């Protein structure tokens, strides 16, 4: 079973994503901020991370940079309420960018698409020297 980590500071959104994605057959863990994210990552590396950009403290982009630098190339989907970060080149270091919506079809399609991408580096590898 594929594992997904959802990081969002809004409790209801975490809840919504968890319910929806579990219904689709993924194993979902949640974190509400960067600190929690790294605590989880220290124990287990998921197959995919969904990261909200706008969070208090470390924002999603920073969390992503730290993950990519320290934990290796885990696939990451960045989310934000609007598309304003699309032009930010730092976001381009992610594997996908999805604008949040009550309609989760786009997010789900993106998840599938990422899992089906030909693997250059297997997801979940946590050795940065693989680059």
């Amino acid at each position, binding site marked *: 079973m594929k594992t997904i980590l959802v990081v969002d500071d809004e409790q209801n959104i975490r809840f919504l994503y968890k319910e929806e994605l579990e219904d689709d057959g993924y194993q979902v863990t949640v974190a509400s901020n960067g600190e929690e994210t790294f605590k989880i990552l220290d124990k287990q590396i998921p197959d995919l991370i969904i990261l909200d950009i706008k969070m208090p403290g470390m924002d999603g982009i920073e969390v992503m940079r730290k993950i990519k630098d320290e934990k290796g190339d885990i696939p990451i989907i960045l989310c934000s*309420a609007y598309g304003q970060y699309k032009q*930010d*080149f730092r976001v381009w270091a992610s594997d996908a*960018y999805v604008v949040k919506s009550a309609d989760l079809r786009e997010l789900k399609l993106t998840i599938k698409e990422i899992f089906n991408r030909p693997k250059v580096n297997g997801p979940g590898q946590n050795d940065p020297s693989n680059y």
Partner: protein
Amino acid sequence: MTESSLGLETLQEVTLIANSTLDLDETLEKIIQVIANKMHIDACAIYLVNESDGLLHLKAAKGLPEKARHINLQIGQGVTGWVAQHGTSLALSEAMQDPRFVYFPEIEEEKFNSMLSVPIPADCPTLGVINVHSIPRRMFSLEETRVLETIAGQVTGCLRNAIQFHQNQMTLKEIQILYDISLAVQSTLKLEHGLWIILSAITMGEAGGFNRAMLFTLGEKNQQLQGIMGLGPDSHEDAVRIWTELDKKKGNLLQWVINEAQRDLHRDSQFHNFVCGLNYSVIPNDNILSETVLQKKPFNITKAREHPLVSQEFADALGVDSFATVPLIAHEEVLGVILVDNRYDQKPITEENLRFLARFTVYASWVIENSRLFSKLLDTNRELLSMKEQLVQAERLSALGEMAAEVAHEIKNPLVSIGGFARRLKDKMADLSQKWGDNEDLKSAANYSDIISGEVERLERLLKNTLIYSKSGAIETEECQLNKLVEEVLYLFKAGLYEKNINLITSLEADLPLLNLDQQKIKQVLINLFYNALESLTLGGLLKVETFQEDYAQKQKMITVRVEDSGGGVPQEVFENIFNPFFTTKHTGTGLGLSICRKIIENHGGTIRVENQLGKGVTVYLHLPLQNSPDYYKN
């Protein structure tokens, strides 16, 4: 009276005279009187070597006919000339019998039988000769010779004093002229007037005394020497006319120069127009003007046509064989060159002339530098002001947009939850109706959740459109060199940095790849950053600007501009608000402009980062992406 008492008494009187006045002619007259009174003689004369013609001129006499006044003797000619040449005294009882004797009718020497002639001593042969004549034939005693020789020694002292005095007078006059010129220059802010005053001084008889002066300025960007002003007569006749006129203006130099400067008459002169048509590139070993710039030293050219750095063409155009060039230097930077010549009176240019000229060039350099700084300041201020206004405008708009975005954001997240759960609710209803079969209540509930998710969808669309509309600052990019933009903007700040005594260190990585940038907008950002740095550097300090390429998250390549100042940093509460568009520490204007800078950089797909070190300074990083966004990010 004994001879020894004669000696003492005479010397005492001569010493008194020598110390009583600084006027040489007066001193000599008085010494003659003393000699005539104390010694038993009938005539007495003092000859001095004239500096310019090298002849012995009769300067003071008693007992000689009036016409003797005009007598000039060559060194070595006659008894007097012999004494001057050999520096040895001669006492002759039968003067006319001496083989060295040459008869001068002007002196009517036939009536004098005996003479005593002593040199006025100096290191170089002699300064002159003192003669005494006696009608009755007599032998001059050794004592008398010694007394006269001592008097001659006193005259040497007087002469030295007089020369010293004359030199002091000259220096005083020079200082006065320099002072007048500096006052005159300060009377005008116009570069052209200031320069005209200086060239006038260089060519004025009382001051520099050169016939003509030409001024070239060195282009800051193109390294070309451009003739900008020429002052001097157009022809020999013109020269005579001007010098006669100038003679009448003596004593009122300052006022005359100031008035004349306002009239701009020099522009009509042929010579001025000739100079304005001259233009030379600064190339080593090519021409004398370039060499003056490159070697930063004056040149005194005496044989122009034989000089390797003077072209035939240049010598012909000047029409002279001798001229001098002097560099204009301010802050170790050459601003231009002044060329002078004496075309009309052909006087050689002496080292003293050159020294005087060098002193004037200090003023010319000063005037040019002032004017450059002033106009640069005006230009820079104008440009900065308009940029600043644009920023303020953009900032106001962006502030509104930002607020709208903030509100929209706060609404969006709850909407996602509401809509998302409404959809889940509907799905659950569908599951239930499958389990329990059709049920009216379930149908109504499913309809309600449909309405909720439909309305949420409508709100989401509305918010999206609003945000697209309020998203300001579309950018028009083209490929360009970031370093060039940085240099262009820094150039605008050159005057400001200099004025505030700020040390600029730049380190721009060579051969950076080209970037797609909105040049105007990036310039605005840079101006804003430098402006903020300058504001913090009120007491001078360091501004460090760097560009370099680096990686981001080991995936992206980016180019970074790093701007570091040593302005002490900003207080923490200010730092926390620097990106807040409504926040400002200034009494006028809006915020620091950083919010709009961020917007611009973000529109380029870049990001801006600020580090604040209290007590040290602020460092701003602009990160600009090198590659375009991946396809899957394109809208």
